[in-house]
């Protein structure tokens, strides 16, 4: 009876039941949540302990080797990526600050990750605001340099862990240096040094406040901003962002209000850059081979090693020579075209500093793309009477064999002429002045000289060369200079000229010009050909030599 009474009691409605058990449910949820957090924390700590800082992956260790001319102008580079490392001390403080202002303002104080920045980025992407990255500079560095570029959540977590670990084990300056040297700036340039060159044509340490802020602005979307300067819309967008970076720098005290007011939006280089004539690859080829030789490494190692090779070349003179030779060939080919059965004119020009051996000028062909063979270094050009001055005098090593060589290379003969100009002192031609890496010098050239001709013999050779051809041309206006020797010779004569050698010497420079021709031979080969006769090749070669001499000695044309 009691039991029936109990079962008659109505079942508690769900709403009531839920309200009654609310506390219990809540408690359980809280416990579950706490457990979850503890588990996650434990997992994070374990993961942090287990995560090692990986080595930078190969692409970000590779650096290209840059070649510059004797005044430091950029000649070109060798290597798979356009990247060169600079120590942080060479990056102006305002450039560092600009990058920090643009990418991660709390960089100097945060712990490698910034939960606030992350939250802001998420909020911005949810509300459709301006695109923002939640990654700190440390995280970006980890992403770019240490991890593979795959995109996944686990990689993101790993990246954050490594970033924290990196931040705790390395100084902020080390991280910033690593970042600046690996981050992609667009225009194919990884790292600030390549970017400074590709955007502004300067070294990192020469960057201005404006240029630094512009580079910092570019890092956000490099593939878009790399068109800066040519696309008005991109330029305007970049300009707005540039102003924003400068404002942030002013607000944080990196630059003064006066610097801010005086900052003008910088001018950019062309992208892709305008063509340079095809000479530079010849120069780089020669210099790269020599540099690798001097360092005792392969050319491939050189290309990946991040060296800066300062060459002996004078880029302005080289360019001017190229134009002069082009003029000469244009007239030669234009007139001789009637009888020219596919005859190609070749010229090789070498200028050496006597007594030192530095090669100022090395013209080996008009277009590297069509003729990668360097005529000046590797071409055998029939000497003919060009060797006559040495016929009566004994030459010492290493020129002993020269008089018996029917077709020496222009470089070889030029070094012999330079020996005459240096009163018989032979200097081995060299093209690399010094090699630096990471701001340290790893090689410096020392002239390698030895006596190859007795001093009085040299004077006689010189006199003989002058007497023979010195009166052929009027004296150039630079009469105050040391007297120069002008000499023209070659193989063949009259209308059957095969080669012309023209030289001008004085104690400061020995210039040698070789003009020859070839025509297509059997089976993809070429055979030597006669030079076209109109205009007379000896005369035009001498004139061109005189013109280059003027360029080389006065600096103007």
């Amino acid at each position: 009876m009691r039991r029936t009474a109990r079962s008659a009691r109505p079942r508690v409605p769900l709403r009531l039941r839920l309200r009654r058990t609310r506390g219990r449910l809540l408690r359980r949820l809280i416990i579950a949540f706490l457990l979850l957090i503890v588990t996650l924390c434990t997992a994070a700590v374990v993961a942090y302990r287990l995560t090692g800082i990986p080595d930078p992956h190969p692409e970000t260790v590779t650096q290209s080797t840059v070649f510059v001319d004797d005044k430091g102008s950029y000649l070109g580079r060798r290597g798979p990526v356009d990247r060169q490392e600079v120590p942080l001390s060479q990056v102006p403080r305002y450039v560092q600050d600009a990058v920090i202002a643009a990418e991660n303002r709390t960089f100097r104080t945060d712990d490698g990750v910034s939960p606030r920045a992350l939250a802001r980025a998420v909020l911005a992407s949810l509300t459709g605001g301006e695109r923002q990255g939640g990654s700190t500079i440390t995280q970006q560095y980890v992403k770019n340099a240490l991890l593979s570029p795959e995109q996944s959540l686990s990689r993101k977590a790993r990246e954050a862990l490594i970033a924290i670990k990196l931040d705790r084990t390395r100084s902020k300056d080390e991280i910033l240096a690593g970042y600046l040297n690996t981050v992609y700036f667009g225009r194919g340039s990884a790292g600030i040094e390549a970017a400074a060159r590709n955007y502004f044509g300067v070294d990192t340490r020469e960057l201005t406040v404006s240029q630094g802020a512009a580079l910092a602005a570019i890092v956000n979307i490099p593939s878009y901003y790399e068109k800066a300067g040519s696309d008005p819309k991109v330029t305007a967008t970049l300009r707005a962002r540039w102003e924003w970076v400068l404002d942030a720098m002013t607000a944080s005290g990196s630059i003064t209000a006066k610097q801010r007011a005086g900052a003008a939006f910088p001018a950019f280089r062309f992208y892709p850059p305008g063509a340079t004539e095809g000479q530079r690859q010849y120069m780089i080829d020669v210099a790269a081979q020599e540099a690798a030789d001097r360092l005792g490494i392969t050319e491939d190692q050189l290309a990946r090693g991040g060296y800066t090779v300062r060459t002996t070349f004078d880029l302005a003179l080289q360019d001017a020579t190229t134009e002069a030779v082009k003029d000469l060939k244009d007239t030669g080919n234009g007139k001789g075209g009637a009888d020219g059965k596919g005859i190609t004119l070749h010229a090789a020009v070498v200028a050496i500093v006597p007594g030192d051996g530095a090669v100022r000028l090395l013209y080996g062909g008009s277009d590297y793309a069509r003729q990668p063979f360097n005529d000046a270094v590797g071409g055998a050009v029939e000497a003919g009477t060009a060797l006559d001055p040495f016929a009566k005098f004994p030459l010492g090593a290493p020129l002993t064999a020269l008089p018996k060589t029917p077709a020496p290379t222009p470089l070889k003969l030029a070094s012999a002429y330079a020996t005459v100009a240096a009163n018989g002192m032979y200097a081995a031609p060299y093209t690399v002045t010094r090699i630096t890496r990471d701001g340290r010098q790893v090689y410096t050239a020392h002239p390698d000289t030895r006596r190859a001709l007795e001093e009085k013999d040299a004077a006689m050779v010189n006199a003989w060369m002058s007497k023979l051809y010195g009166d052929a041309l009027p004296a150039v206006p630079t009469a105050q200079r040391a007297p120069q020797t002008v000499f023209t010779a070659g193989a063949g004569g009259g209308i059957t000229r095969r080669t012309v050698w023209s030289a001008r010497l004085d104690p400061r420079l020995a210039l040698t010009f070789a003009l020859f021709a070839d025509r297509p031979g059997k089976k993809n080969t070429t055979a030597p050909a006669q030079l076209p006769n109109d205009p007379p090749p000896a005369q035009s070669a001498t004139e061109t030599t005189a013109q280059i001499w003027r360029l080389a000695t006065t600096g103007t044309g």
Partner: protein
Amino acid sequence: MPDPHDDFTAYAHAHLPRLVTTAHLLSGATGDPREATELVRRTLVGVCARWRRIPRDDVDFYVRRSLVKEFLRGARRQRSLPDGVLKDTSARQRAVLVMLHREGLREAEVAQLLGWSAGAVGSRARRGLAVCGGDAGRLRELFAEAAQAVEAAQVGAGAVPFGVPLDAVEQRGRALRRRRRTVVAAVCALLLVPAGVLAAERIVGGGTADGSVAGVVDVARSPIRIVAPGERVAAVPGVQVWLTSDGKHWSTPQRPNQFLGLTDDSYASASKVGAESEKPAASVQPDRLNSSYFLSGLYWGLSADPARVEVTVDENKMTGTVLTLAGSPGWGVWYTRASLSLAELKSSYGDGGPTVTVYDAAGKVVARGGADW
């Protein structure tokens, strides 16, 4: 508005006997029933303190829960009972037994009341029953007897029913509620005030950061590009312009490889500014293309890069494109993309030929010049 505690007094008054009985049974149904009133008093103070939040359609449940919890809290201190049938039961088993066999709740309801699972309630009920004889009917009778004994003991206990002074209970209940409320308010204040201050700072700070606006509106700025020495620029089809540190080079189909040096003697004497090339000046060189003219020239002696180069041919003003070397050398080459017809050029020579004006970033004229022939 009626005092919300009115119905508390009424409720407490009405349910007091039952509560005291239950409390007595929970305490083991032995000894003086008046000891149970202390438990009821503590329970009622707590109930009074949170009376407003107790759902009115389920008051009994919450009051019962308070009672049992209060009992279990106190039971932790006093372990064993002196004597009686319930002597060997634990406090929890007793709570379950009383709820099931005296209050007439189902196991599920007891589980809700105690915040346990139904299984835990069932097992405790079975074990408790086994300890005190294993007979539920006997237990119920025992409970009924004990209840009657309690009621009998309380009849005529005086003005204060069952020895529980309800006024005092209510007073203490309110005091408890006030204290709790104060604590909650203080904690909230401690959490919210710093957060609010931070948020306010952020908003104010953000306001000033967003306040700056890009100031200068630039009207027809000259495109200015940096070139490397010897870098060929295709200015217009067929025309190449390049710079070396010495000056301007250019090639047209008619005249390849032209050069104009910065320090060229012949040039300096011919130019209108004379030999003093440090003084800011500019020049114009017209070049014949097939049927039109290409205008280009030099400027030099500036302290910074120009903002605008303007070429005037008659009344026609054109903006020139500027090429300069890296590092703001203060000189450069300008050219126009638009070509000029022979007629236009000829007519302009009536008033001295084409002229070029160089402006700086502030819009000031820094250099001027014309064609030198």
